[in-house]
């Protein structure tokens, strides 16, 4: 199995290289600068795969030069990758890191060089700095956490949530938006605690949360901690539902748990490719499986949609970075996950869904969709 994965990994790079073609013949240059190592490697690899698949499926007549550069997880790693990608001329657009701190470091350079950054980062502040070159194809926390809180309060009718979040920037941003969203709904969490991603035992926080007598457990954790929490909660049977963050919808997270452990667990996300829903979505999922030997998630789909919008714009004649930026800023694109449209600040995604597991499989069903006007 490992050998097969290594071959698939190499094949993905080889396929990307072959899609790129010789530099002189390329119409477009779209480097993929994302974290494929480090603590965000899981999500970053999904992001990379989504971009790679979109480039491989570029509209006929377009040749795309591309290169995957691992940014690691440091801001300087992202800046170095961007400098390297720009070393042989200005890229048409960049599939840029989903890590907020890296995006913040890349933004001034993108402005200086005039390169559109297409990302699935959820960090709110990257589109709050007046930078006209950033485009986010994943709903920000303002959208997803509102959906998260609304599902808890309006659909489940819960009024006493216990909120458990990660102590990372991702977790704290989500917690702040959850708190605001709950406040608007007149709901006051009975318990809130941050958990370091390296924590190996979730029983202490589960014990304390249950001592506060909540009627629902609301999680905003990374993939591994989410799976740990759900597993330990299933073993302890706390008797209250779990509504988790987007990490729970990732197939790799569900793969760590038995279907029975997932019974009744729900999660917010922008989309759930493995849940299907349309022939186009099912074709994307099949193509992704064939290309990478793994299941796609919302990050992969968001990045795929973003790069496809760039490529479609290029096919329509937008062949310079500035023309691509204008097309992204003003256009409306019907992607697989949703219809994208900039709110004037580069926020392209304005929908979120809630998925739930029924205990019989690791594939969730979409149970509620929330659309927010941009």
């Amino acid at each position, binding site marked *: *199995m490992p050998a097969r994965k290594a071959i698939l990994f190499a094949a993905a790079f080889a396929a990307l290289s072959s899609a790129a073609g010789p530099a002189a013949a390329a119409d477009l240059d779209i480097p993929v600068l994302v974290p494929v190592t480090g603590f965000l490697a899981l999500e970053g690899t999904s992001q990379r795969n989504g971009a790679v698949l979109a480039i491989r499926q570029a509209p006929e007549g377009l040749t795309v030069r591309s290169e995957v550069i691992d940014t690691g997880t440091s801001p300087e790693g992202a800046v170095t990758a961007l400098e390297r990608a720009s070393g042989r001329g200005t890229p048409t657009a960049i599939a840029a890191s989903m890590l907020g701190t890296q995006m913040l470091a890349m933004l001034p350079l993108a402005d200086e060089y005039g390169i559109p950054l297409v990302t699935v980062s959820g960090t709110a502040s990257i589109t709050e700095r007046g930078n006209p070159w950033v485009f986010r194809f994943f709903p920000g926390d303002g959208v997803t956490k509102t959906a998260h809180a609304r599902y808890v309060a309006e659909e489940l009718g819960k009024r006493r949530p216990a909120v458990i979040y990660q102590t990372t920037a991702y977790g704290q941003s989500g917690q702040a938006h959850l708190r605001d969203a709950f406040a608007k709904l007149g709901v006051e969490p009975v318990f809130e605690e*941050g958990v370091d991603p390296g924590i190996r*035992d979730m029983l202490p926080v589960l014990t304390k949360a249950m001592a506060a007598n909540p009627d629902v457990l609301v999680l905003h954790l990374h993939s591994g901690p989410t799976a740990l929490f759900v597993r330990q909660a299933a073993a302890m049977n706390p008797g209250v539902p779990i509504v988790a963050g987007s990490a729970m919808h990732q197939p*790799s997270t569900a793969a*760590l748990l038995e279907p029975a452990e997932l019974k009744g667990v729900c999660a917010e996300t922008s989309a759930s490719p493995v849940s299907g829903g349309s022939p186009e979505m099912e074709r994307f999922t099949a193509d992704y499986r064939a290309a990478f030997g793994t299941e796609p998630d919302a990050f992969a789909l968001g990045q795929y949609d973003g790069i496809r919008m760039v490529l479609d714009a290029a096919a329509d004649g937008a062949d310079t970075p500035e023309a691509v930026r204008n097309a992204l800023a003003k256009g409306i694109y019907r992607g697989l996950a949703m219809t994208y449209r900039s709110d004037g600040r580069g926020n392209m995604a304005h929908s979120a869904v809630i998925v739930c597991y029924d205990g019989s499989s690791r594939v969730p069903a979409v149970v509620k969709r929330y659309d927010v006007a941009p």
Partner: protein
Amino acid sequence: MTGVAQLLVNGVALGASYALVALGFVLVLNATSAVNFAQGDLVMAGGFLAVALAGSIPLPGILLLPLVAALMAALGLLVSLLAYLPLRHRPPVSVFISTIAVGIILQNGATLLFGPEPKAAPPLFGGGTLDIAGVLVPEQSLAVVAVAGLLILGQHWLFARTQLGRRLRATAQDPEMARACGIPVTAMVAATFALGAALAGAAGLLLSNQFFVTPTSGSGLILKAYIAVTIGGWGSVAGAVAGALLIAAFEVVVSATLSYSAATAALYLALLAILAVRPQGLFGEAARSRA
């Protein structure tokens, strides 16, 4: 009361796994006076090896354990050949850096081979839960404590009762004198790395079932091992075990009563207090008397 017992059950299982990591760490430290900063990543490698073997050979974890330990011992030998022996006469910082490099190579190698997704190794026996006087005890936790305990006792037996153990101890205490006595010091050092990696592999299998394994999951473990050894007393095998159990119990209990952040802060405060009172660690004197 039941809640505290429940927490302690988890804490003991976690501590037993930490103890295996710390033991491998202290073994290499004793034999070479070098700090092996790749020990946490060797645990990660053991976890992924268990996942890979389970994918090819559908056996319960307890039967995979010897295989994982043997293959990890071979990896330990390789580490000693590449990262320690060529540098042993250089300043200590050379080995320090080379073991960090080994850890980074292992992390990125794991990412290439297995991808970044968290993975779980098979359970040692089964996946059930026992209800003991209201305390829910996962069978895996019992198995982890039992296996870790056996491995710790086995290591004690090896060092105290066998010819190999005596040679290893002699090498650790005075390599030059050991060489003068005809002990193959280089082979003993390599054997120590192999044993340390085998213990890391066992810990990797035990931990990766309960807590999953990712390419970066070893990074935090080495810090835990380092603190356990410092609390217990550098060079003391018993101290490493006690230190690991203390850390796990401390983490679990303080986390449950205050918060995870408070537990982390309190752990380091306790470490400072222990070092202020006993700079040699809790078992430091015992270690010196044995030497």
